[in-house]
């Protein structure tokens, strides 16, 4: 799945979906996430939340940039999962993404891990 709006490019890929044989749902977000593509990001993440995973891991290693709009999309996922008894984990943010997570203290609300395996281990 990919979405291209203006010159900005955001790709959201679901590489694993929690099931009998899969212990978690893994979503990779790559490109740059900002206000111009937050609606698409929110919609795609909502689809995964609606599957009611117990563990949703978002791999941010390919995300070069995230603004506060996109951050709020992640915070919304975190709140929804929390209500459903699920857990959100973020993996490998690049420096610009790590900065906004730290500035807003979102990284104290949502656990951040160095690798998918570390996130899966909780």
């Amino acid at each position, binding site marked *: 799945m990919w979405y291209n*709006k*203006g*010159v*900005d*490019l955001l790709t959201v890929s679901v590489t694993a979906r929690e099931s009998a044989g899969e212990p978690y749902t893994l979503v990779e977000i790559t490109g*740059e996430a*900002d*206000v*111009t593509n937050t609606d698409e990001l929110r919609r795609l993440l909502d689809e995964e939340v609606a599957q009611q995973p117990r563990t949703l891991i978002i791999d941010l290693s390919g995300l070069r*940039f995230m*603004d*506060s*709009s996109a*951050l*709020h999309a992640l*915070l*919304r996922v975190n*709140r929804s999962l929390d209500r459903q008894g699920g857990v959100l984990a973020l993996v490998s943010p690049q*420096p*610009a993404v790590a*900065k*906004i997570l730290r*500035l*807003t*203290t*979102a990284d104290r*609300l949502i656990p951040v891990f160095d690798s998918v395996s570390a996130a899966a281990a909780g």
Partner: protein
Amino acid sequence: MTWDGKTARREPAEHDALTRQPVPRPDGDGPVPRPPSPDPDDPMSYDYTTDLAAIRAVVHRYALQAGLTEARAIDLTLAVSEVAANTVKHAKSPGSLNIWYDAKEIVCQVHDEGVITDPLAGRREPSLDAGGGHGLWIVNQVCDQVEIESDETGTTIRLHMNLPLRGVGQ
């Protein structure tokens, strides 16, 4: 991180209210250079609509060229992107970005036709549950100085970031 000092350093009379041109600063550093005229051929001046990735690339490049560290260049890029995002969300008109720097600081000026009515916009930390409102707050956290002028004709936001001292001991 706190930047309590910056509020005190805001100078209400730093620019002429009518012409919006910088006036000489009281610290004796001389006038702030005038922003370049909005000429599409001028690399320091950009008009934008929703092409925020392009804006970020420009800011990052100038920030490094001016002498900011990579971490501070990232901060400035984030700040400008948040301001430009407000244009996309609220202004319903194109915005313009001007960048200039001297030996001491880099300044990014964003202008659009949106109106900010809250005099404390970006000065209070929003709740993470608020669903929004972090843009200008982030801008205030990362920049060394933020000037906001807004009236019914539009908004001009000037983001200042100090450059590291160079040539110390020479």
